[in-house]
């Protein structure tokens, strides 16, 4: 009631007087509040970005800072587009992103759909399921190396126990065929809860009356699922897929600790290639060009992501 009065009083106040009451002009205050953040981002994100763009046109090597820097024009970019290794890394990344997203979406949505049945104790078990995604991918990824160890590792032991393969032959991380899947398994274990949580929000946003109407129309459960549940949860599923897509496209920490890109280069995703080029071969100019290409790709995805965000927000 007090608020109502104050609100009316504020509306009744003539504009010039109201400004005086406010002291510093709102415009001034707005910039005072926002500019520190913008300045920080300019200094730590945008300035380095422009530096990277400049370097991408040169042959600069960070381990030889005193050497004369030559301008190479676009040749770094040309070399990247023609580089076999880069294309293999992009294929490895695509394989990783495709399978992790597919598995996480299917399992995550199924879990959310089951949790939405609201059985007794569902809140507790949901919290338990959420734990892996909060942990450090690096520290936990490192420990999975132990679980994958042939013979002594728990994962390998269980696999050999179930399938009957001799325990020394279950070599998840050093087998060329299995290593990409070893990474996909850990990522799926860690991030399925993320997709699940967002899908759950989607399922809970569907108004009950739609189901009631469907029930009146005697729509089968199957029909209800395909015509109501799935389409209405879809924007949320898309949001989760996009976010996981962006995150996994730039995946570094977990892969670096599990396999380091090996065996050979079978699990060398884009970020690992970038790190090898930039911090091991010290081809700073070349790797900057690759970084810019990756950044443009992520930026495009992020753009779509924000559009999807706003769509969900309207619900």
């Amino acid at each position: 009631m007090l608020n109502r009065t104050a609100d009316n009083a504020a509306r009744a106040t003539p504009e010039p007087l109201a400004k005086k009451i406010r002291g510093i002009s709102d415009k001034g205050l707005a910039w005072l509040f926002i500019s520190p953040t913008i300045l920080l981002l300019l200094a730590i994100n945008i300035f380095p970005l422009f530096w990277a763009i400049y370097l991408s046109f040169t042959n600069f090597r960070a381990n030889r800072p005193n050497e004369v820097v030559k301008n190479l024009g676009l040749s770094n970019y040309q070399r990247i587009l023609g580089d076999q290794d880069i294309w293999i890394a992009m294929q490895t990344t695509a394989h990783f992103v495709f399978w992790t997203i597919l598995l996480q979406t299917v399992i995550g949505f199924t879990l959310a759909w089951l949790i939405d049945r609201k059985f007794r104790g569902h809140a507790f078990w949901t919290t338990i399921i959420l734990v892996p995604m909060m942990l450090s991918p690096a520290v936990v990824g490192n420990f999975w190396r132990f679980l994958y160890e042939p013979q002594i590792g728990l994962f390998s032991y269980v696999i050999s126990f179930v399938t009957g393969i001799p325990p020394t032959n279950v070599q998840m991380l050093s087998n060329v065929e299995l290593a990409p899947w070893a990474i996909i398994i850990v990522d799926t274990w860690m991030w399925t809860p993320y997709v699940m949580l967002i899908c759950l929000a989607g399922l809970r946003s569907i108004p009950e009356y739609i189901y009631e109407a469907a029930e009146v129309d005697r729509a089968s459960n199957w029909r209800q699922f395909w015509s109501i549940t799935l389409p209405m949860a879809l924007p949320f599923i898309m949001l989760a897929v996009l976010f996981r897509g962006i995150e996994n496209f730039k995946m570094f920490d977990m892969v670096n600790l599990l396999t380091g890109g090996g065996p050979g280069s079978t699990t060398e995703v884009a970020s690992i290639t970038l790190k090898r080029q930039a911090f091991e071969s010290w081809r700073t100019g070349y790797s900057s060009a690759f970084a810019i290409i990756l950044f443009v790709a992520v930026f495009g995805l992020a753009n779509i992501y924000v559009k999807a965000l706003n769509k969900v927000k309207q619900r």
Partner: protein
Amino acid sequence: MSLTTAHSVVAPSANSKRIAGVIIVAYALISIVPLLWIFATSFKTPPDSIAYPPKIVFQPSIEGYCNLFTTRTRQTPEYINSLGPATGFCDETVRKRNMVIAGPSNFLPRFVNSLIIAFGSTFCAVFLGTLSAYGFSRFKVPLADDLLFFILSTRFMPPIAVAIPIYLMYRELGLSDTALGMILLYTAVNVSLAVWLLKGFIDEIPREYEEAAMIDGYTRLQAFWRTVLPQATTGIAATAIFCLIFAWNEYAFAALLTSGTAQTAPPFIPTIIGEGGQDWPAVAAGTTIFLVPILVFTILLRKQLLRGITFGAVRK
């Protein structure tokens, strides 16, 4: 977003609930096995940890924790016998393996680095984020949507791509391998999350409160301080925890930009080695100590989790 959850007329049958419950509990139990295994391994002796088949029942020992906090050297039995009585449990355990404690390991300083950098960057990010979020929420900022997208997009940059020029910039400025450099970097990464999350929280506080305060003679700044901030405390706390978790867990920047004095725990833990390879009980002990704070925070945050992971878009 409406929150209609109970499908009263169309409620799932008792049977389908039971089946759903069994599947979910099974999934939850399987998915926490790796974490339980970390915990169990931290209390195994090195020989027990690499036994075949993997030991589920074992004699608990704190040797892993001893090894985590100390460095040891191998000595002859004669030398060890010539020493005085063992001064503590760790000393005794280590001597049984023909070793003596040479000094403290780097784990504690790395852990302290993690604390300093995580808390420092969280404080800065939340401080800047609160101001900006208020600015975006209450004032007509020109190009507000573009600025907000710009702020969010910085979060999506691949860390390795950012690390290349940052590495060079920090080398020029003398910020390489310093806590200050890492705090600045993590603040920049976290501030995007803080702005987006806090804007959502502040949007939910009715403007009428401030307007009433300003009618009472407060300036805009005072009104912000006395009416908005107290009401935004839950949101600020939740945001701070999300920032803290990110900075605590971060690996890519830390691995590339720190090597010694400012190194945090995540790049350090994988480098813990004993004789003949990775000292898994010690790694597990370090991992356990490192993960416990996050477990506590996850439980505290469970109601805000959805909001945090979607940058405030999905509010439940």
